[in-house]
Each structure stands twice: as structure tokens, then as C-alpha cells.
């Protein structure tokens, strides 16, 4: 694969939550169009990395930098990051009572369009736009008129995140354990959709505990995060190695280093 322009560059990132240092110096470079997987044991800081890149206020950056498209990402508010094309598929999507998925999606899309100086879509235009998107990923519209995530099963919530990804068309999509809680069919659907959304203008950072999602989405690079640091990076074969050997050998390596 031809190397694209650098999109995200993280250097020496140290992050604490509630006084505990979770990330202890993360370095990461993601180019345009690349798919990187972040793997690691529970508590290694994978979700913290995803959340802090999206700007969750509960996390405190102690040191380091994150540059996104030439801008200081850490200085940007969460909504500014979103408008600049950073999307986080949440591990635990929240419910919003009384607001339908389609209303919510249109509000979000129009916010992004306004920011780009594009005209907002009225409900009719949006419906058409949405139909095309759904068709492209081969989904139906059964979730659109239900309140956002309310009464959704775990799998539906995760699918809904991917649907939002498809509609909002980010430049950097961060998937935070999107595979957890999915049965094999749902996992395949999500993976196929992500594959359809892959392209030169879109990069993915896929945070996962298990290798199984990577059976369907082949990453360009796999990183192993252990105890707040990236202890190993490699090609897709690294994921298979982890599946076979577990994380302990790397964790021990991290302790030593």
C-alpha cells in the first residue's frame, strides 16, 4: 500500500484519570487511508487512548502531544474534533430518550455540514441521503425511527455506532471495542461495513481485546498496548501471534523495558 500523508501523530502521550496515570508515553503515527489496530490486555489503556483522542473531559493529559491534520488535537474541544473529522464509535453508547435516531443523525450531520460551509439538509433531503447510505452498506432503516439507543440490545447499539460512522463520513474513525458483545453474525456485518467504508480518505484506529474482528478487517499495522505503552508494533500477523500466545509475554517485556 502506498503511504499516505500523516493524519495523526501522537508523541509521548501521558494521561491520567482520577489521579491514576493510565497512558505512560504513547507514540503512534497514522497515515491517511491506513487501518491500525490497538490490541492489549484489559486495563492496558486502550479505551483511555480512544477517549482522550476524542476529548473526553474526565481524562487529564499530563504530557505529550497529538497532532491531527497539522493541528494540536489536544487543544480542541470534543465538538471541534468531531467537526474536523474525528469520530469515536463508543464502547458503551448512551441512550437519549425521546430523540429518534434519524433526528439525531440529521442534527449531527447538519452541524458538520454547517462547519464545512455546506447547506444543511432538510428532513426530506436527509431521508434521501440516508437511503443511499443504507443501501451502500446494505442495511435497512429499522433503527432510524427508534429513540437513540433506547431499548437497543448490546449488538444493536454497536451497529448503530457503525451506522453513524457511515453517515458522518469521518476522516479518522476510532472504534473502541466495537466487537465486544457482538455475536458472530453481527461481527461479520460490522466488519463488512467497515471494509466498505475503508478508502484513501479515511483512517481507522481499531481498539480491540480480541483478534477475531481482525479476521475480517485486515489492518495495516497492529500495535500492542501494555501498561500504558505501545510495546510492540507489527503487521497483521502480529494479531495472530497474540491470539496464539496471549499477552503475558509482552507484558513481561514491558515491565523489563
Amino acid at each position: 500500500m502506498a503511504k499516505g500523508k500523516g493524519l495523526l501523530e501522537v508523541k509521548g502521550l501521558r494521561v491520567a484519570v482520577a489521579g491514576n496515570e493510565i497512558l505512560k508515553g504513547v507514540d503512534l503515527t497514522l497515515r491517511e487511508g491506513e487501518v491500525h489496530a490497538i490490541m492489549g490486555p484489559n486495563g492496558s489503556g486502550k479505551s483511555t487512548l480512544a477517549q482522550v483522542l476524542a476529548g473526553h473531559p474526565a481524562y487529564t493529559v499530563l504530557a505529550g502531544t497529538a497532532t491531527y491534520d497539522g493541528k494540536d488535537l489536544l487543544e480542541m474541544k470534543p465538538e471541534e474534533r468531531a467537526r474536523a473529522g474525528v469520530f469515536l464509535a463508543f464502547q458503551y453508547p448512551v441512550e437519549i430518550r425521546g430523540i429518534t435516531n434519524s433526528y439525531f443523525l440529521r442534527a449531527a450531520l447538519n452541524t458538520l455540514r454547517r462547519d464545512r460551509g455546506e447547506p444543511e439538509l432538510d428532513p426530506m433531503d436527509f431521508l434521501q441521503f440516508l437511503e443511499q447510505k443504507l443501501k451502500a452498506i446494505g442495511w435497512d432503516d429499522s433503527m432510524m425511527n427508534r429513540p437513540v439507543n433506547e431499548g437497543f440490545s448490546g449488538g444493536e447499539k454497536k451497529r448503530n455506532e457503525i451506522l453513524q460512522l457511515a453517515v458522518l463520513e469521518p476522516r479518522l474513525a476510532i472504534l473502541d471495542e466495537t466487537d465486544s458483545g457482538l455475536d458472530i453474525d453481527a461481527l461479520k456485518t460490522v466488519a463488512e461495513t467497515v471494509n466498505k467504508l475503508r478508502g484513501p480518505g479515511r483512517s481507522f484506529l481499531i481498539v480491540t481485546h480480541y483478534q477475531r474482528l481482525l479476521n475480517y478487517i485486515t489492518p495495516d499495522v497492529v500495535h500492542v498496548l501494555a501498561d500504558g505503552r505501545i510495546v510492540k508494533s507489527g503487521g497483521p500477523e502480529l494479531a495472530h501471534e497474540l491470539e496464539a500466545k496471549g499477552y503475558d509475554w509482552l507484558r513481561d517485556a514491558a515491565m523489563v523495558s
Partner: protein
Amino acid sequence: MTSIEAHVQQPYKYGFVTDIESEVVPAGLNEDVIRLISAKKDEPAWMLEWRLKAYRNWLKMTEPHWPNVKYGPIDYQAISYYAAPKQKPKLDSLDQVDPKLVATFAKLGIPIEEQKRLTGVAVDAVFDSVSVATTFQAELAKFGVIFKPISQAIREHPELVQKYLSTVVPINDNFFAALNSAVFTDGSFVYIPKGVRCPLELSTYFRINASSTGQFERTLIIADEGSYVSYLEGCSAPMRDEHQLHAAVVELVALDRATIKYSTIQNWYPGDEEGRGGIYNFVTKRGKCAGANSKISWTQVETGSAITWKYPGCILQGDNSIGEFYSVAVTSHRQQADTGTKMIHLGKNTRSTIVSKGISAGRGQNTYRGLVKIMKGAEGARNYSQCDSMLIGDQCGAHTFPYIDVRNSTAIMEHEASTSKIGEDQIFYLRQRGLSSEDAVSMIVNGFCKEVFKELPMEFAVEATRLLGISLEGSVG
């Protein structure tokens, strides 16, 4: 939580004072003041007698202190009970209304001039103690609909007023209702004749302007057999350091197969952040489904007032009659609300629905208090109640007191309640999708209130969501 709270605690937008020459009677309450009010309204003798009877009852009553609200003593002798802008004695046309009053209502979004009127809505504009304009009266008269200030109705339709006044809220019903009966000054009177579907929305806008006065409005709505009316009320007041008392009485009567839909957007001045000033909104509202298959539906959006004490209820007397109560009550700063409803089931197969949404922010205290009473003869009565509370921040409170009194074993009652808190996680989720934190709070609050907002007429739904700082865009309906 600072961004969320800052958003909820927006400045009050209707706090201006109209500089207009007013006639204000000196503060104090006694029989002479009541005689003076009655004389100013050019009332018949029976009305004065009725007022005096109410006053004598009131003297024997004590102010209720069971609500879950706290305030200092009210000095009833320090209040002026009548204030009216001076204007030409006889108005031939609404266009002769004092331009300052016209401008005041225009600023409040209530145009009363002939050429600028709201389409589809007839408005009675009440300024302090008097109605200054009522639009579309002649047009409504063609359908036999009477819509006019109650002071005028007392003179022009004494038979209707005497037949129905205080049949739903007796003059000694409670302390504030008795006070209102003694000193009420203006409000609206509505009569919809048999079989008529009122062609316009009827609306009254109450404005308090003068200082050190109380406003005591009285509204009486009668829907005759098979008729329908939708009535809306709104209100606001200037920002002042003193508390002002607003004690209204509203009575609704629905005869056989009649339907009354009554909507309120209450936006009296709520006081400042420290709880200085603001209106005491002590109100008695009740409807009687007197006829079989009649229906009364209350919808209220209560965002204003320092203290709200209000329980719009329904007496379900006619068989198969229906009572509904949909409420959103918001308390922020140091506002306190103790509000809810009373559903009294008397007739067979009567049904009631209660949906209450309480939102507390800042140091606001929000109490839902509701009574559902199923009497012995109410075979097959049904009630569904839903009380949801939302907390914004950690210094506010939500309280729920549902009272249930069932005396007929065939009754079916359902009660659901929930309490939730807007959390940073919810806000963050929406911000991650590009929404500003203000829009995020708006969207969450809007969704929470949706079941109530969808009961409001469209113009009011827009106003209600705007009041909560919400961009609406078709999510209601």
C-alpha cells in the same frame, strides 16, 4: 457540570418594565377595597355580594404550609389589589389601544393590532388588572362563541356567569382561591355553544407590570354539549427584587361529549440566582367533566416563578369522561415548584392519564404531588400515571408524592416513576458527534419532555422548546 448549568440558567428575557401611567389603588385589603374593585368593573350587586362572601370566608382561613416549598411571610396588607394603565375611557377599535401597550405585547410576541394578528389564534391581552384588548371577538361571535374579558362577561352574560362561576372551585376551596374570589380583577370568559368546534385557538396573555401589586386573574370556560375548544395561556413579568403574588383561579366545565384542551406556558419572572425577587404563583385550576363522554386535557410548561403551587385537576363526573394532565416543570437557580394534579373519578368507566416531567437544575427544588381518587360509584375507572424527574447538577432536588385513594375494587391503576441525571457521558456523546454542549443539553431535555410537548398546539410547542433553549426542528409532533 458548569457548561450544563450555565446553559440552563439563561437570563430572563421578558424582564423589562413598560413606562406607562397607571392607576394603582393604595396597598391594603378590606371590604372597601373590594367595593372599589367591584365599582371600577361596573359590576352588578350580586357580584359584589359574592366577593364579600368570599372575603369573609378568607378572613377565617389560614395560608397553607403543607407544600414542599419555603418562603417568608406574605403581608397581604402590603399588596395593591388593583392596577390599571390609564387610557381613553371608550375604545371603538383595538387600534386605539395605547401604543405603549401595543408595543409591550408586540415585544412579548403577542401582536394585537388588527393587521398583525396571529393567524388562527384569538388573543385576550391582560395587563395588570385589566384586559386591554381581545382580538377576533366579532368573528367568533358569528359561531356563537363568546370570548371576552370576564369583567365584561359579568355585565353582558350574567346568566351564564352566575350559573357556572364557583361550581368547580368553590369560593372557600382554599386560602388562595378565596382570596382570588374576593379581589379578582380580570381574566377570560369563554362559552362554546352546543355542537360548535371553536374555529380559532383562544389565548390569553397575562402581563404583570406595576410594582407592589398582585395579579388575581379569573378564567371561566364552558364547553356546551358536543363542542370543542383549545385554549392557551401565557404570562410574564418584569424583573424586580420584591416578590409579587399571582393567585389565579381557572374553572373549566365540559358538558356531554364536549372537549376542552387547556395549555399553559408559565414564564413569570423566576427571581435571580440568589432567589431575590420572582413571582409567587399560587394557582387553583380545575375542570369538571360534568357530562358523559366529555374530556378535559391540561398541558402545562412551567418554567418561571420563584414558587409554583399548582394542581390542575379534573373532576370526572360524567360516565366515560376523560381527564389528562401533561406537565413539564423546570426549576433552576433557587426556584421551587410543588405541582401536579388531582383526578377525581366519580362516573363509570372514567379514565385519567398523568404524565409529569420535572427538571431540576442549580439549587431548584421540584416536587410532583398528585392525587388519584376513585370513588365508590366509579365502576371500571382507569388511571395511568408516569412521573419522571431529571436532575442537572448536584445541588438540586426532585421529590414525588403520589397519593392514591381507591374505593372501588374494579379500578385499574398504573404508576411509573423514574429519576435520571444528565451526565457528562451523555453530553460527551453528543459533542463527539459535533453538537455544542448547549445543543447537547437541549437535545437531551427536549427528548425528555417530548411526550408533553407533543400535546401542545404547534405555536406553543415552538415557544416551549425555545424557552428551554431548544432548537426544535420537527422533533416534536
